[in-house]
């Protein structure tokens, strides 16, 4: 750069190299602008020319000039002194910027070394621990061997049965043709645990069964490896596969279809067995510790509650008291949605991720590393949504900065503990009670404002408000079914429906009468002719609409809307949630529309 500033001046000077060397040496002294250096060089060139014109030799002029280094220093200092105040301020600022940039560079290099050199050292094998726990379950308590046998016997199941939007007629037809399979599923549902093996690679037996169902060929790589097997997930808790879910969902569908068939055939005993089996599967999922399995359990429990209410409504008097008691008991005591959501596996998942991403200094702290960030992005399978982390080059450059931006291991864990503590209290709070601080609002704030501070928390934390709502909805449906059964038993016993809901008289737990939306007793009214009744919750808007169901019926019910939120909603939005959540009789298209 220095040479570039004075190069043309010297090249055009016509002076010999020794003289040019002196000028270069003088101008080499730093902290002058290019223009200033050029000006000094020009003047010195002219100085030597003048001397030579006067007959002096270049050597004599060089000798007279004095020490070029000392001259350079003095000249540079003098040139700087003659700068104007603005220019001086600018140059000071420039120097400050350079100094700051240098300092930042030094800091960055330090961080870079720290980021590149460390590596996580996972010390706990969570997958093995989980596997050991699963293996400790006695063989006779494990349902999976029977479910797997049922799967082996249903390789002829049409693919449509596997879809969420399955064809109900086809499902009924298939169930009717496979009574042995249903018997196997019922037996499996009586066992307390699923007992599916803990594995992080695809289940070859299920892959074979599904290939037979869909008529596809299992593709294998040249080395025999399964192309769906992602090595990055091996031995990680987040990589544990839950392939049993799809299979057991299919079994629950077959039970529901068979229950429907049984009612059509007047076989109420089979209906009861099928319903108990559905609740049994829901219960098994409820005992599993992943959130996804708990959610699937609730969905199956909801389906069971619906078919029970529908059967009682459609065929009053069809069940004898013993059957009704079995149904009531199944839903009262084996209610997966009654116990608090188990978040313990979520914690293990978090701990496993932390030990794979952060270094470990042996006393609970550590920092992010290059390999840890790479593991994080691989395991989270970010695809295109996480900006910087997508691009390996940017990841490489931004990585060291993450040591400053992102919390260290101790801070991250402390934050996680704090959130989990508040979430635990939140999940135990009755649904109708609003927490002082809404954890989801806090998480949302963290997601927008501290996304890079606690990326692991914001990425891994499930949407717990939805989870809490879903649990409350499931519970309400189950309580609705319990009450429908209890009221039917009362009618059969007393010859009429009771005039009001009294837990003791109905032989139901007192909390089965609670409206989950309000915390008050569900609304119950017997029709004028005494032949029917309406049982309802006030629904999402917490307002009594006289039992007029909300549009979309039970399936449209979502989170309760606190009054303060309701006031802020538009007329249109309020209209959508108007109406009550009618638990019995289940709404039909002919019901009146809320005004």
């Amino acid at each position: 750069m220095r040479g570039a500033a004075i190069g043309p001046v010297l090249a055009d000077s016509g002076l010999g190299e020794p003289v040019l060397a002196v000028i270069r040496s003088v101008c080499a002294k730093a902290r002058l602008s290019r223009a200033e250096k050029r000006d000094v060089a020009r003047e010195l060139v002219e100085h030597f020319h003048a001397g030579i014109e006067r007959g002096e030799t270049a050597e004599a002029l060089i000798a007279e000039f004095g020490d070029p280094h000392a001259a350079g220093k003095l000249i540079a200092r003098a040139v700087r002194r003659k700068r104007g105040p603005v220019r001086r301020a600018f140059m000071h600022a420039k120097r400050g910027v350079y100094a700051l940039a240098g300092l930042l560079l030094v800091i960055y290099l330090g961080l870079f070394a720290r980021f590149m050199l460390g590596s996580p050292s996972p010390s706990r094998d969570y997958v093995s621990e989980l596997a050991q726990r699963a293996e400790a379950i006695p063989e006779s308590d494990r349902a999976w061997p029977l479910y797997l046998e049922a799967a082996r016997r249903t390789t002829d199941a049409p693919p449509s049965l596997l879809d969420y939007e399955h064809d109900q007629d086809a499902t009924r037809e298939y169930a009717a043709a496979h009574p042995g399979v249903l018997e196997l599923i019922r037996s499996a549902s009586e066992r307390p645990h699923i007992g599916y093996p803990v594995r992080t690679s695809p289940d070859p037996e299920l892959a074979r069964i599904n290939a037979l169902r869909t008529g596809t060929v299992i593709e294998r790589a040249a080395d025999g490896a399964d192309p769906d097997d992602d090595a990055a997930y091996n031995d990680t808790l987040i990589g544990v596969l839950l392939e049993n879910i799809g299979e057991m969902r299919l079994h629950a569908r077959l039970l529901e279809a068979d229950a429907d068939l049984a009612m059509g055939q007047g076989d109420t005993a089979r209906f009861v067995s099928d319903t108990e089996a559905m609740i049994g599967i829901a219960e098994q999922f409820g005992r599993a510790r992943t959130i996804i399995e708990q959610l699937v359990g609730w969905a199956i429990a909801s389906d069971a509650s619906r078919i029970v209410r529908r059967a009682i409504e459609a065929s009053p008097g069809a069940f004898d008291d013993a059957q009704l008691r079995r149904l009531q008991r199944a839903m009262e005591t084996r209610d997966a949605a009654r116990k608090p959501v188990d978040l313990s596996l979520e914690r293990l998942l978090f701990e496993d991720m932390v030990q794979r991403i952060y270094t470990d200094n042996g006393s609970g702290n550590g920092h992010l590393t290059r390999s840890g960030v790479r593991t994080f992005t691989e395991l989270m399978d970010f695809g295109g949504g996480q900006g910087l982390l997508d691009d390996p080059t940017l990841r490489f450059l931004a990585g060291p900065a993450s040591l400053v931006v992102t919390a260290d291991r101790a801070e991250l864990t402390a934050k996680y503990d704090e959130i989990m503590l508040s979430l635990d209290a939140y999940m135990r709070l009755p649904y109708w009670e609003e927490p002082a601080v809404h954890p989801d609002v806090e998480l949302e704030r963290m997601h927008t404002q501290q996304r890079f501070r606690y990326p692991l928390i914001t990425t891994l934390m499930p949407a717990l408000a939805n989870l809490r709502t879903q649990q409350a909805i499931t519970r309400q449906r189950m309580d609705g079914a319990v009450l429908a059964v209890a009221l039917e038993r009362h009618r059969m016993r007393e010859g009429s429906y009771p005039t009001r809901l009294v837990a003791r008289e109905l032989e139901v737990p007192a909390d089965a009468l609670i409206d989950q939306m309000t915390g008050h007793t569900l609304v119950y009214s017997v029709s004028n002719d005494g032949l029917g009744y309406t049982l309802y919750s006030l629904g999402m808007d917490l307002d009594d609409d006289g039992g007029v169901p909300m549009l979309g019926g039970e399936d449209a019910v979502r989170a309760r809307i606190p009054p303060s939120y309701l006031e802020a909603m538009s007329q249109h939005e309020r209209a959508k949630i108007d109406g009550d959540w009618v638990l019995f009789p289940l709404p039909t298209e002919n019901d009146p529309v809320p005004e």
Partner: protein
Amino acid sequence: MKIEREMMRGAGPVAVLHLLQRRPMYGYELVETLEQRSGGVLAMGQSTLYPMLYNLEGKGLVKAEWRSAESGRDRKYYALTAKGKKRLADDTQQWRAVTDAMTKLGVLSRFARPLPVSAGVSA
């Protein structure tokens, strides 16, 4: 004779300003003239002159201008500014006072031995 650096620091700028009050001059010309007219006492190396000129320019006592010389080349000429003239007048006044005082003290006298022509100045 060798002039001490501190004395040169005080005398050099006055001498340069004095030379420039008659007409603008360029660097080499100033070096040459100072040496000749001071009998070599105020001769200064270029490495002293140019920083001095830049300092004087920075204080607004002289101004520099690139002009074509007779040789056809551009040269940087230094000329006295109004501020420079005033400073020269002040400095001259002070030098006179110092000389008078020194004379009265007997440090300087009309009988003092003249300086040899070949005396040099330490930069």
